[in-house]
């Protein structure tokens, strides 16, 4: 049995590696994706392009603009001279925020009369808009506080001491890159497995395999082991990029990461096999892969927290291997979590893998008979 599986594995490897382009795709594209997405995936809201319409042009108004600019969150792109420019800038998307300081601002301040500042934010991207509003409010409140302190020496009542754990600088890259590892690996393995198996059916070589003395289980193992090996190697490569290129800390144990990766790959390969047993053509396999992959990524908690999803969809995420692996990989990378904390995820992933592999091997066998 072992000998037959070995032969089969060798055949698979030859087949995959015969096509130079395939080789490039398997080993280079994960790295390219990793690099591109490691840089792209930053949700830090900085450099919010801002227009300032300063009608007061006083020392105070300039001081306020200066504070807004030096906060690091806003980059003042335009100094508006006429009111109707504001609308145009926002509509063209040239700026996200506009700040209008009215005439008499400094005079009012000196007299102790509250003076108003008008802020308009482009709400199209509600996330950025919320953050931008929060920043502006905070800067203006601080400025206002500093001014009133000069006047009547009031003190702030609550002194907020906030700290962020696990990622003290709140670098979004630290959170996103481990997630990118998980989705890049999933894509490569899923597509490779589902397409490669269907291909044998489509071209008619599966019939040839069936007349050999290979048993169904051997056939399946022989088909999947090479993909598992490729997946594992890819995982090693992208993790190396994450650690040495992006300096993402791995707080936890590498062995524990490897073990969980194995379980994860098992579940992904199982899904790929399952897709291959329900598809007749490679076109179908590819579409089915997409139909599974896109929801799997978007509903995994990769960028949208699962707790905010409707209950029904939350139940659906329990059959998504990515959901568990994301918690695991982020836990190991950022929190240094070990088995004592992550065992529920590992166990769920394991059970899911067993389920998918069993289901797909049953379907595979049925198709052979």
């Amino acid at each position, binding site marked *: 049995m072992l000998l037959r599986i070995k032969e089969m594995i060798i055949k698979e490897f030859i087949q995959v590696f015969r096509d130079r382009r395939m080789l490039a795709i398997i080993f280079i594209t994960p790295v390219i994706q990793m690099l591109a997405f490691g*840089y792209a995936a930053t949700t830090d809201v900085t450099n919010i392009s801002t227009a300032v319409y300063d009608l007061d042009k006083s020392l105070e108004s300039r001081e306020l603009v200066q504070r807004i600019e030096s906060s690091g969150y806003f980059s003042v792109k335009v100094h508006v001279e006429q009111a109707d420019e504001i609308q145009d800038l926002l509509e063209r998307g040239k700026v996200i925020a506009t700040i209008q300081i009215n005439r008499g601002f400094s005079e009012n301040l000196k007299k102790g009369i509250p*003076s108003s500042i008008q802020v308009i934010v482009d709400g199209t991207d509600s996330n950025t808009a919320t953050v931008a509003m929060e920043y502006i409010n905070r800067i203006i409140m601080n400025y206002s506080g500093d001014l009133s302190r000069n006047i009547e020496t009031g*003190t702030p009542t609550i002194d907020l001491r906030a700290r962020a754990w696990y990622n003290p600088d709140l670098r979004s890259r630290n959170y996103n890159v481990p997630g990118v590892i998980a989705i890049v690996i999933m894509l490569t393995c899923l597509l490779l497995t589902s397409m490669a198996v269907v291909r044998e059916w489509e071209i008619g070589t599966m019939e040839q395999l069936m007349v050999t003395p290979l048993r169904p289980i051997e056939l399946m193992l022989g088909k999947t082991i090479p993909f598992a090996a490729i997946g594992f190697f890819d995982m090693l490569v992208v993790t190396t990029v994450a650690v040495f290129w992006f300096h993402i800390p791995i707080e936890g144990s590498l062995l524990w990461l490897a073990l969980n990766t194995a379980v994860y790959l098992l579940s992904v390969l199982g899904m790929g096999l399952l897709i291959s047993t329900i598809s007749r053509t490679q076109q179908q396999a590819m579409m*089915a892969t997409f139909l599974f992959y896109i929801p799997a990524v978007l509903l995994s908690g990769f960028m*949208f*927290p699962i707790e905010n999803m409707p209950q029904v969809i939350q139940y659906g995420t329990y059959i998504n291997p990515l959901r568990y692996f994301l*918690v695991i990989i982020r836990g190991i990378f950022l929190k240094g979590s070990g088995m004592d904390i992550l065992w529920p995820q590992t166990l769920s992933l394991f059970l899911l893998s067993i389920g998918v592999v069993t289901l797909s091997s049953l379907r595979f066998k049925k198709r052979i008979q």
Partner: protein
Amino acid sequence: MKVSRIRAIAKKELIQIRRDPLSLAMAFLMPVMLLFIFGYAITLDVNNLETVVCDLDKSMLSRELVAQFGESDYFTIIDSVHSQGEIDGYLDRGEALVAITIPQDFSEDIKKGRPAGLQVIVDGSDSNTATIALGYVSGVTGLFSKRISLRQSPPLIDTRVRVWFNEELKSRNFIIPGLIAVIMSVIAALLTSLTVAREWERGTMEQLISTPVKTQEFILGKLIPYFLIGFIDMLISVLLAVFLFDVPMRGSLFLLAVLSSLFLFGGLSLGMLISIVAKSQLVASQIAMVATFLPAFLLSGFMYTIANMPKPLQLITYAIPARYFVSILKDIFLKGNALNMLLFETALLGLFALVVFAIANKQFKKRIE
């Protein structure tokens, strides 16, 4: 170029599509299913942050502050603990994202007019949520100190913030148009990426080469049926967005249709090019995946602001048609922009389509010779 030959190729392709009803069904099902799930599931609104409270003061004031946190929609207090040590466990297990500790002398400090310290720890591993959570914390404490402060003079600066284009800051309003762009990018490339490769793999390409059909006729003929499918997909998506998800449609539908056609033409040509270059369906599927989904998802400005990416990466985004389509869709839907505001996007989308179509033509010719 003869219309009759283009028609013949288109007809042949249509017959081939019809023969694979499963793929056809998936082509129509995909946008519906994806939009349906994500429209409901995806929200960037952060609320119900799981919070643990450690109230060491146990005074009227501290209870009032805790109540204020509990009343806001943003925080859900899941437990009150009695020592700071217990907080660690909640954060480590990921059961709580925010931990608030009120120190023993909190109320006394306030009564004596000293700044009272309040300790807040957030789980920083999801930096986006963490930043927003910190903003909410300072909002709640700000309100609280305003309320309790006895001799509170009115704030000197009164900030009036207005939000344009998406007044209620509903994240759905910008996620849905963005998603349409992502889904359509993927579908367009998917539809055509296997067509030519399949002909090679099955050996039917030699037959086609022996006919008098010319390259341009062949490519156009192949594109037309998929263009129809893509256009129907687009139509379904817009209808779902407007009638199911109540995304406001402020611009012209006609303009949207024209620009979508331009986008589709580019996307389908890209798929065709991939198919011509790849020659095998397995390779084509991998390239299509890598070239469409992740770039459209991550580099189009849909999720991550392009202005925040490193310069080289920003340059790459110019080559991604989804980038233009995302802003076209958001602008037409939310801002009601007319063509004069979208000239840049339209021009580059057109350029992309032409260049890719031309390359596809050229590549194909080489293969025949």
